[in-house]
């Protein structure tokens, strides 16, 4: 055996039916015990690469395959996926689809069962691994009743129960709230310290992977750069170009002084800040707050109001427990909270998809119960989280025109509105394309356009940035911002805290069906302790500014308020 757990030699792979190679000459050596993170833009080949390590490619997903992958001394092409399972565990992004047992214990037992491990040994492994991920008290629960974060922890435990030497995780935290994300990475950090396991993690979130050993940046199926984490994170611009979100702290310091090295963590940032002899000017900060106050006061016509809103699902689960809120015309607000805190349930009341079981929801000062979904759909558009839950047409044009046709709008007007909507989402000229052939972000845009075409006053977006890379997230939110500036009221639900701090003016924080916090974004994000109760954490940069006593939502904002020299 060699000193490498994984050796990849000039690997090329092309999915069946595709023209372009998803992997185009990857060579990589991963030593035993390393924690390697794979990053890159959407469709760069990250997931494809991770599927090559346990043999899903080429055995499960057939296609053109060249080069070789040697895992623990064995050529992947000469074995098969089930046989590799004892050595290579894999955790997928979709935590719903990868769990199939009816209770937590049996989920963990499934892997070892397949390898004919004795019952006593399986019992031991269940106990050990559930404790390892912190689910020991959930032994007899059904996996479906767990929260997203717990499901993903269970998926990890069920893979660890096979005692793999390599653990591959393909975007394990994409759908999770910030603290659940942290929970998953706390587990990877524990695993990192063990030298009997090699970790390979595909991830978008940079803040969480600071503890990794190396980062491999993938671009167009090739390794663009590979190196120690600290070196890679210095290169703010390169990361942005690759569609990877740079860390907030180095990004900020690069703007003040473009000479590396930049601090990476919050602590390093504070130290450097003091060393640079910088401070925040009190007068400039107050000016900024006053300006903000004034612009927020411009919105005072309520469009959506909830009065003591309660909602109980038919199965008896009480999802909303007395919500009072007001959203004004022209505002851009975010609804945040941990998985299953009631965000989506709340938003579905705004367009009449759900009717309150207690209290009242008013849109335009009229109860949603009186208006009905068909009429409300005209005023309040709702873009669902997963575009694949609504796209069904063969042409982008038909998809976008669907809502208009249902409303009996004349043909010429439909043409006009469809092209307007496509311009707004940056897809003009795509009318004759097949929506299914577009990327996730493209399909997301088609879904937004299909709602925009109806020309609603209010646009609700449920997790518009989930599953997109950093550049796609930015351009999606920039587009939403333009819609807001054109007068639309925007309500979005998200787990991405930086999206909230940089784009939302007002924030509602939900916890267990109740409003934990509400107010303008700055005030909400200054209360780190309370946010943590709802499994939320501000981005590094905001935490950094909070540590310095002021809350800044973006580096640019802070730079405007900085002064050099001593305070006296």
């Amino acid at each position, binding site marked *: 055996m060699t000193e490498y757990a994984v050796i990849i030699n000039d690997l090329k792979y092309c999915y069946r039916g595709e023209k372009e190679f998803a992997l185009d000459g990857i060579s990589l050596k991963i030593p035993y015990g390393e924690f390697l993170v794979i990053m890159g833009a959407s469709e760069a080949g990250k997931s494809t690469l991770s599927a090559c390590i346990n043999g899903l490619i080429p055995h499960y997903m057939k296609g053109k395959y060249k080069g070789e992958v040697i895992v623990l001394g064995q050529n992947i092409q000469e074995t098969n996926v*089930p046989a590799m399972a*004892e050595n290579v565990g894999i955790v997928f992004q979709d935590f719903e689809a990868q*769990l199939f047992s*009816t209770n937590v214990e049996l989920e963990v037992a499934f892997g070892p069962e397949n390898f004919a491990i004795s019952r006593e040994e399986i019992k031991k492994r269940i106990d050990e691994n559930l404790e390892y991920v912190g689910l020991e008290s959930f032994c007899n629960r059904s996996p*479906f009743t767990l929260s997203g974060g717990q499901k993903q922890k269970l998926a990890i435990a069920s893979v660890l129960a096979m005692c793999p030497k390599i653990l591959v995780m393909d975007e394990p935290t994409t759908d999770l709230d910030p603290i659940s994300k942290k929970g998953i990475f706390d587990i990877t950090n524990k695993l990192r310290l063990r030298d009997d396991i090699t970790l390979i993690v595909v991830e978008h979130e940079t803040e969480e992977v600071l503890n990794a050993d190396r980062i491999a940046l993938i671009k167009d199926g090739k390794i663009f750069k590979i190196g120690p984490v600290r070196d890679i994170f210095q290169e703010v611009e390169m990361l942005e170009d690759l569609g990877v979100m740079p860390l907030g702290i180095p990004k900020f310091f690069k703007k003040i002084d473009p000479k590396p090295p930049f601090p990476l963590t919050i602590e390093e940032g504070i130290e450097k800040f003091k060393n640079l002899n910088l401070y925040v000017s009190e007068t400039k900060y107050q000016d900024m707050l006053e300006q903000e106050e004034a612009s927020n006061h411009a919105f005072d016509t309520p469009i959506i109001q909830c009065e003591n809103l309660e909602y109980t699902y038919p199965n008896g689960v009480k999802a909303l427990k007395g919500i009072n809120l007001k959203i004004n015309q022209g505002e851009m607000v975010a609804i945040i909270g941990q998985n299953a805190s009631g965000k989506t349930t709340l938003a579905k009341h705004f367009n009449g*998809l759900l009717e309150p079981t207690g209290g009242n929801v008013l849109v335009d000062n009229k109860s949603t119960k009186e208006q009905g979904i068909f009429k409300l759909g005209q005023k309040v558009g709702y873009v669902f989280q997963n575009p694949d839950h609504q796209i069904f047409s063969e042409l982008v044009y038909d998809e976008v025109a669907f809502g208009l046709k249902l409303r009996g709008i004349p043909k010429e007007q439909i043409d006009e509105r469809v092209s307007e909507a496509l311009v707004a989402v940056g897809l003009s000229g795509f009318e004759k394309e097949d929506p299914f052939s577009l990327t996730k972000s493209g399909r997301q845009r088609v879904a937004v356009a299909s709602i925009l075409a109806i020309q609603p006053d209010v646009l609700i977006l449920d997790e518009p940035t989930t599953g997109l890379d950093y550049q796609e997230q930015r351009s999606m939110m920039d587009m939403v911002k333009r819609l807001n500036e054109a007068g639309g009221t925007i309500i979005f639900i998200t787990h991405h805290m930086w999206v909230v701090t940089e784009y939302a003016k007002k924030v509602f924080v939900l916890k267990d069906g109740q409003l934990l916090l509400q107010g303008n974004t700055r005030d909400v994000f200054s209360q780190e302790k309370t946010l943590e109760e709802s499994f939320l954490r501000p981005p590094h940069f905001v935490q950094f500014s909070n540590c310095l006593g002021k809350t800044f939502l973006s580096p640019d904002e802070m730079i405007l308020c900085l002064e050099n020299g001593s305070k006296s």
Partner: protein
Amino acid sequence: MTELYLDYNTIMHRLDARTKILIFILNFIAMVLFDHPLYLLPIISLILLQAALAKVWVNIWRIRFLLTVLIITGIFMWNIFASGATHLFWIFDLESLLYSICRTMLIVFMIFSGVILISTTRNEELVLGMIQLGLPYRVGFTISTSLRLVPTIANSIYTVSQAQRSRGLDLESGSIIEKIKKYIPLLIPVFISTIRNTNVFGMALESKGFGAKKDRTFYLNSVMKKLDYFIIIFGVIFVAVSIFLDIQGYGIIPGLSKF
């Protein structure tokens, strides 16, 4: 996400999966033998007793619409395939009506029986039970997996229909043809997301070593208890008596002719 399995600890839940699968089969035999609804009453009262013991009324309530549709179409439809001497009105004869009631009861109470089985038996127990009764592991696993898919698909139908209703799709109004057309925007996304889900499911399955070895451990340990044997013996005697009565010519409807 809603599951059909009800996590209670009733006497029915505690029975061995083998016993419950056998009860299910015996229920079917006891009902299919007779044409006359009167002869179904003993077995139906036993099925109702099982349902009461297992506390599965929640799940029965969930499928109330399906049951209503089945009862209405059943009582109507079987008349087309049978006729008798005593004409009542339209397609209905006294004999064919009795026969329709009997067949409809068969279908409805087999569904009851199935709901009892699924609501009281974990998927894994069901697989184990089927294997202990002699089915190959892959077959047992396939059956239980398709059962697992039902709530997943129901869930995605719910989400997709909400998404399309938000865009103005009105599923309630229109003629039958129009209504069927309206389901296209629902079916395609449901179909696609189900394929995606099963694809991930398949990958997860293989990645956990499904079928890696010829032998496999079952973590669940299932033991037949006295009560299991008692119930199976009772069931077998009950069905034997039913078969005896059937051979003796009981349970037919005089004057009924089936097509």
